């Protein structure tokens, strides 16, 4: 026998499909939905449908967007000679928040991980190489590709895979530096970060 009536069980099951949501959270969310005003529930479900209907992958950079090409790719004010490669759209947002990067992006939607069954074919890489031809890139030659994948083993593997892929081409490839967060007190920097910062030190 079901613990809850069928519609409730269905909703709980759907919540449980979401990442990071277990049985307890799913129950709490489901009961919250039941207490919500009907208009609010409608607005919520419409928002989900709309995101699904209107958000697509940018044909050029794979970013999630409501216009295609996305606002970065179609913006003539951005520096199209520089491409920053990130794993996920939210990594793009982090780079963008710095306000110091004016180039364009390429979103992979994942990182290499054999144990999770993610091979190079599963990354959105197929449309990267064509971008390096000026005729496909607003007549701009790509001068630098910045690998901004995560500083973990999967991100490193992804970065070196792409670096090898690009090696035959005469484009400069850089990897973001791992080190100390700027503006932070040395006192609050953890030992791993400090260790990396020390081994990546440079002469001044």
């Amino acid at each position, binding site marked *: 026998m079901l613990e809850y009536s069928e519609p409730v069980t269905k909703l709980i099951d759907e919540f449980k499909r979401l990442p990071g949501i277990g049985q307890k959270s799913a129950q709490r969310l489901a009961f919250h939905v039941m207490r919500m005003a009907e208009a609010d529930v409608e607005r919520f479900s419409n928002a989900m449908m709309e995101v699904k209907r209107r958000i697509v992958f940018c044909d050029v950079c794979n970013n999630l967007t409501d216009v295609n090409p996305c606002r970065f790719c179609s913006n003539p004010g951005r520096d199209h000679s520089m491409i920053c490669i990130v794993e996920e759209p939210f990594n793009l947002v982090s780079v963008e928040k710095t306000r110091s990067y004016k180039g364009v992006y390429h979103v992979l939607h994942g990182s290499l991980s*054999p144990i999770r069954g993610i091979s190079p074919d599963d990354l959105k890489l197929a449309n990267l190489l064509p971008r390096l031809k000026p005729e496909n890139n607003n007549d701009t030659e790509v001068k630098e590709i910045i690998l901004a994948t995560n500083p*973990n083993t999967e991100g490193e593997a992804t970065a070196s*895979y792409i670096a*090898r892929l690009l090696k035959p081409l005469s484009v400069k490839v850089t990897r973001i530096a791992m080190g100390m967060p700027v503006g932070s007190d040395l006192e609050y920097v*953890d*030992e*791993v970060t400090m*260790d990396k910062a020390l081994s990546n030190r440079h002469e001044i």
Partner: protein
Amino acid sequence: MLLKNLETYNWRNINGIAVWNPDLNLIYGENGQGKTNWLEAIYLLATTKSFRTQRLQEGVKYDNHTAFVRGTVSRNQNIHRELQVTLQGAVKTLTVNGKRETTAAYLGQLHAYAFTANELDTIRGTPEARRKFLDRGVASLHQSYVHTLADYNRVVKQKNRLLQEKFTDPNDISKIKQQIEIWNFQLVKLGTEIHHARVEYVEKLNEKLRRDLFGAETYAIRYVSSLGGKGDLADYERLFATRLEVRLQAEMQAGYSLIGTHRDDLEITFDNRSLRIYGSSGQHRSALILLDLAAIDVYYEWHQEYPLFVMDDVDAELDARRLSLLLQQLEGRTQTFITTSDEDLRHRFTGRATAYKIVAGCIEL
């Protein structure tokens, strides 16, 4: 460092507060009364782990209840900190002076070396147990080594998954090879760090090893790289990279990683003979004592303070002579905690030791 006192609540069958002797603490009592539980509580406070179980919730007396161990640690005369490990179901909370801390921040506060029956695996167990001994030692000096090791193991796991794939199409084979090379690239970087860290640690141990403390025989240790004899170990990075290239085919055949620091070993000998094969169980214990003493000295040289030393069930583990020699060596160095069912032991160390009689989990005064 000194553990001044320890309070336990709902941890196994023990409850109460103990005030410890800065030198030697003898915890004695009949079997089943809870001596080892007290020692385990000290170890738990220092390492956030148990030397008896992987599942800490087993130690919580009543299901769904909270258990804690709490103790005051003094680093010198003026610095005292209250550490606490709280267990609630499977959730472990660590606090220093009442404030929650991450595991990394907490672990720097109190350090303990343990001599337990399990530790004898270091001598007579598989190479993995000896690598663990070395890795624990390196990590006690460089905390960030823990992450290097974790990354290395993760890379091996990723690579093994690729090696398990079976292909017949030559096109697919070359694709897989290309991906394996990507992981090998990281393996070389991380493995080289691990190799150098372990070699350096073994050098330090060798400097401190009191080879003939037990008189009869001379003990020696040597780090044995699985790449030994395959080329120039001094340029490990290059050697490792070359060997990975040469052995790629063999690794694909085997279906798992054949070379790397996860295949290395620590060779322990007495009078130039393999201790694991030819040593008596007494000699095994002598060697473990020597290794622990050396590790303690290396720790001291680096941190300028001594860790705690805990030893479970000395009667079973050590004869009278070895125990005396060990305790003599530890005097003036570590704060030491040992459990025994031999009540007479305290008479042999009067003046130096405080004895705690455990009855039904409690300290009898």
